[in-house]
């Protein structure tokens, strides 16, 4: 059974279809890249899946369930910007996650934080942008979720931190879960993807296995993207 099933999904803002009748099915054990130019609808789609927005019409089911409390319990969402308050310390954030999510693995989170030399008494305020992003990712990946939604997980971090983040994703999702990643840093991410979905003006323009694209077109996903969306 697919982890995620989207059928004829439409999301309207006023009169504009930001998500314009899309259907997607995602099997378990897959890492999917959701790519598209700015304003293509990526973040809107992710927020619909996370249950932060409601669809205008169409169906979404995650692990066979309609979007709601039950799906929020099995979806682990990393928003495109860190959302912890500056006054918080790491132990507070950990307590927050363990309180909020039944599937949060405190031991796993602590181990990863230790490897990065992030102390439980460190304050969010004193952290660099890269450290904040790593902390957020560690929390999100420490949940034993069915679907991970990672909205631009490597936004503002240096190449070494990018590698760390990608490795953390690979090592932590399980075979019965799936990961959806949106990013503009395609070249950095494409090697960890199974499939890629190109979104443009709220429509799906391409949905393919990444290895098939490489074989048929002898090009990287990054090159194909640049060709399709040349300004």
């Amino acid at each position: 059974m697919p982890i995620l099933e989207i059928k004829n999904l439409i999301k309207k803002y006023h009169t504009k279809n930001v998500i314009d009748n899309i259907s997607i099915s995602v099997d378990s054990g897959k890492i999917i890249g959701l790519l598209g130019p700015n304003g293509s609808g990526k973040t809107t789609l992710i927020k619909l899946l996370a249950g932060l927005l409601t669809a205008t019409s169409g169906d979404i089911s995650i692990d066979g369930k309609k979007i709601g409390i039950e799906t929020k319990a099995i979806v682990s969402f990393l928003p495109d910007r860190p959302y912890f308050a500056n006054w918080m310390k790491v132990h507070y954030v950990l307590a927050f996650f363990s309180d909020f999510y039944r599937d949060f693995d405190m031991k796993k989170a602590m181990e990863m934080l230790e490897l990065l030399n992030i102390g439980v008494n460190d304050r969010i305020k004193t952290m660099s942008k890269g450290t904040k992003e790593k902390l957020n990712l560690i929390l999100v990946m420490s949940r034993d979720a069915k679907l991970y939604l990672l909205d631009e997980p490597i936004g503002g971090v240096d190449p070494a931190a990018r590698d760390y983040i990608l490795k953390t994703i690979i090592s932590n999702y399980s075979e019965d879960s799936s990961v959806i990643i949106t990013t503009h840093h395609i070249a950095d991410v494409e090697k960890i993807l199974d499939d890629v979905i190109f979104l443009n003006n709220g429509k799906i323009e391409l949905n393919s296995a990444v290895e098939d694209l490489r074989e048929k077109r002898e090009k990287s996903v990054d090159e194909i993207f640049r060709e399709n969306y040349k300004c």
Partner: protein
Amino acid sequence: MDWEIKSDRPVYLQLVEKIQFDVVSGVYKPGGNIPSVRELAAQVGVNPNTMQKALVELEKKGLLYAKGTSGRFVTDDTKLIQEIREDIAGENARIYLENVENLGYSFDEAVKLLKKAMEDK
């Protein structure tokens, strides 16, 4: 270990080539075990399913074998390893010859160039 994986050709083929090279060059010893799919994928920074596909391909070739739940191992068949080693070396020799021939050198000159490269090393 250095894994230079390019994004414009199928990644699993590059993984097959690289692991094969590591086996015949002795990085992975005959009969020795291979890290898990997840570990290798994280180490190289590639998709675990792609890594899995590469390892299965190497199993088909007989270079690796799976032993129940204890993971994957390199074959004990040193003859097979030797054969593949010769194949890879032969392929590299052909590429070298083709390249210097395209530059207008004869076979004898190509051999001399090889010797010179050895002396300069």
